[in-house]
């Protein structure tokens, strides 16, 4: 750091010059000096402004080419596929007999994949053992896709230097930058557009008009084991996600739009308190898996019980005794007596950014990957809707 040599007050003497800023940005400073620079950048108005201006000039990083697309590795794809199929053929035990069940009508490939898992489709029932094995091999290969698809999506979205970080924080990526649910008590009815909702609207323009219906809980007639059904559902959602998920730049832009003057106050105050239509009855999230309820307008709080400890992100209360909460990894809870929350099933383990409840059975949730889903039977079935 150095002064600017213009005879300005002492506060400027410690200001950062352009060369030091560039060295800091390129990682050319020793750790101790970089820490000093960073502290100054955090506290000096002029230098923060310079840094922000500098940040706006950073060009878009080139998108990393997926490993499997590199020309010198392409020959590995058929070899690896053949090896995987051969290994599955040898190692996977053959099912004794296909179970009888009724397949759930679905409009996308999820249905066929899931029915293959349970071996319930008519074709599966009629298949010879060898055909059955082939189907199983194809199925298992398909099951391995979600992680690959997700990784591919992440690679396309992040710069090379961010790639490892983004993968390491896959769970955290689902965390919204802003708590934007309009149901939060203290925050005023949200005039602020949610990034996810913006993405949803964009998706709705491009998506066809079909409405997809999902059932999170396998009906009794459906013999598909939940453990096997979950990956299939994940795959289906992963297939849809690239079109629906907001790109990093879109997310940032939407976040920026959401930042009207004073948004910090709203966001600070919205972690997370949920008011019912009766202002005396309200809930608040006070930590991971910790929820409290007040029946006297927040003067006194008593702990509510959740079936499990999970990070919660939003809530909605349509009446004084009903409250819905959503969080990470497909977590949805509802209470109808105000104190005891029960888990509401959902189709997959995505993260939620907001919820709007109508009563104890009907609610609409927004997921981090841009979907809006509605239930009218407390989660027994979910309908994908336009936002």
């Amino acid at each position, binding site marked *: 750091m150095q002064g600017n040599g213009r005879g300005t007050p002492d506060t400027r003497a410690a200001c950062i010059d352009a060369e030091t800023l560039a060295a800091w940005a390129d990682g050319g400073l020793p750790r101790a000096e970089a820490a000093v620079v960073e502290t100054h950048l955090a506290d000096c108005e002029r230098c923060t402004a*310079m840094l*922000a201006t500098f*940040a706006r000039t950073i060009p878009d990083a080139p998108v990393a080419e997926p490993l499997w697309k590199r020309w010198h590795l392409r020959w590995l794809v058929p070899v690896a596929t053949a090896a995987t199929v051969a290994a599955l053929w040898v190692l996977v035990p053959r099912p004794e007999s296909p179970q009888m069940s009724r397949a759930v009508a679905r409009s996308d490939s999820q249905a066929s994949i899931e029915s293959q898992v349970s071996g319930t489709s008519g074709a599966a029932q009629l298949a010879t053992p060898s055909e059955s094995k082939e189907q199983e091999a194809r199925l298992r290969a398909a099951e391995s896709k979600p992680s690959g698809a997700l990784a591919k999506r992440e690679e396309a979205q992040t710069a090379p230097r961010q790639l490892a970080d983004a993968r390491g924080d896959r769970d*955290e990526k689902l965390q919204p930058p802003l708590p934007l649910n309009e149901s939060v008590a203290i925050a005023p009815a949200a005039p602020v557009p949610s990034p996810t909702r913006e993405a949803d609207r964009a998706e709705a323009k491009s998506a066809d008009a079909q409405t997809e219906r999902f059932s999170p809980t396998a009906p009794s007639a459906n013999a598909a084991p939940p453990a096997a059904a979950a990956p299939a559902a994940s795959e289906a959602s992963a297939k849809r996600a690239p079109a629906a998920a907001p790109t990093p730049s879109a997310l940032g*832009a939407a976040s920026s739009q959401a930042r009207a003057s004073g948004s910090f106050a709203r966001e600070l105050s919205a972690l997370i308190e949920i008011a019912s239509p009766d202002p005396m009855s309200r809930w608040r999230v006070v930590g991971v898996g910790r929820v409290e309820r007040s029946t006297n307008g927040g003067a006194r709080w008593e702990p509510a019980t959740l079936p499990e400890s999970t990070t919660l992100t939003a809530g909605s209360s349509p009446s004084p005794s009903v409250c819905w909460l959503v969080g990470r990894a497909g977590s949805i809870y509802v209470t109808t007596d105000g104190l005891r929350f029960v888990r509401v099933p959902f189709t997959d383990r995505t993260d939620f950014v907001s919820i709007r409840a109508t009563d104890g059975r009907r609610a609409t949730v927004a997921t981090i990957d841009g979907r809006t889903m509605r239930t009218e039977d407390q989660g027994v079935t979910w309908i994908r809707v336009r936002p």
Partner: protein
Amino acid sequence: MTQTRTAFLDRALVERLYRKARGERWSLPLDVFASTLEASARKAFASSTPDASQLDRYCESLHLEDLAVACACAQGVDAAWEHFIREYRPGLYRAADAIDPSGGSRDLADSLYGELFGLDVRDGERRSHFRYFHGRSSLATWLRAVLSQRHVDRLRSTRRQDPLPEDETPGAIPATSNEVDPQRAGYVGLMRRSVTAAVAALEPRDRLRLRCYYAQDLTLLQIGRMLNESEATASRHLSRARRDVRATVERDLRAQRMTDAEIADCFAAVVSDSAYLDLAELLGSDPGSDPGSDPGAKTARAESGPARKNANVERSKVKETSRAGQR
């Protein structure tokens, strides 16, 4: 670029670095390159005396090819200039357009380009702005940083000369209403102090993220690129910083014997009018104002001392007002 004696660096090291920098491509004199290296090392080790291994490590970490280009341009080597114009000047103008898409920063880029070329002649010697490039970053990064610095400094100097807005103009600050609820005003005062102190207590990098996001209006993507982290990580850290601020504020208010309901009222008071707790205003975002006049930081620093007493006094007033209202 002046030629100085290279007492700081070993000759063999200079020759090795010269080869690595491909200085011969520009027919760059070794002595000139050596003096450039020495200037760089002297800046990096301004407050310490490095040993040979430290110098070696430092020099090896430099962007040597860029340093050689800058050095050759400063010497007026035509081939180097052609290379600069082809490889670096477009980036300079792209950065200017990114700073001001309406083209308002193009003149800054032109001016910088002129200074790089060495239009400034002093004592018969052409002085190129390249002398300030030390190779600790890439040349492209340095150019963008210089442009950013000039943009901000110009903005600040321009805003200092702007007249204060008239009462009727949109930018005028409205006078406070006479009908201010004293209890709410007290809550707002408490919250402003408490939040400012909580933000000041954050780690510098968290503070930087908050500043960039709320005061400078950067996107998460821009913050992530700047701090060499993914957008998701920037988002996560920002959320955590907000939670920390929230927890600290609640703790602070509870330490002042406020009830949960009063704390909720405090938050509601600042939310009802977001201008009460605008982080941009608390931390200062206007590059036109005086440096070091960060009211939030000053308040935060003072909070640990006598200001804490004042806060308690104010809290007592709030309490009394509240009780009076209940009666």
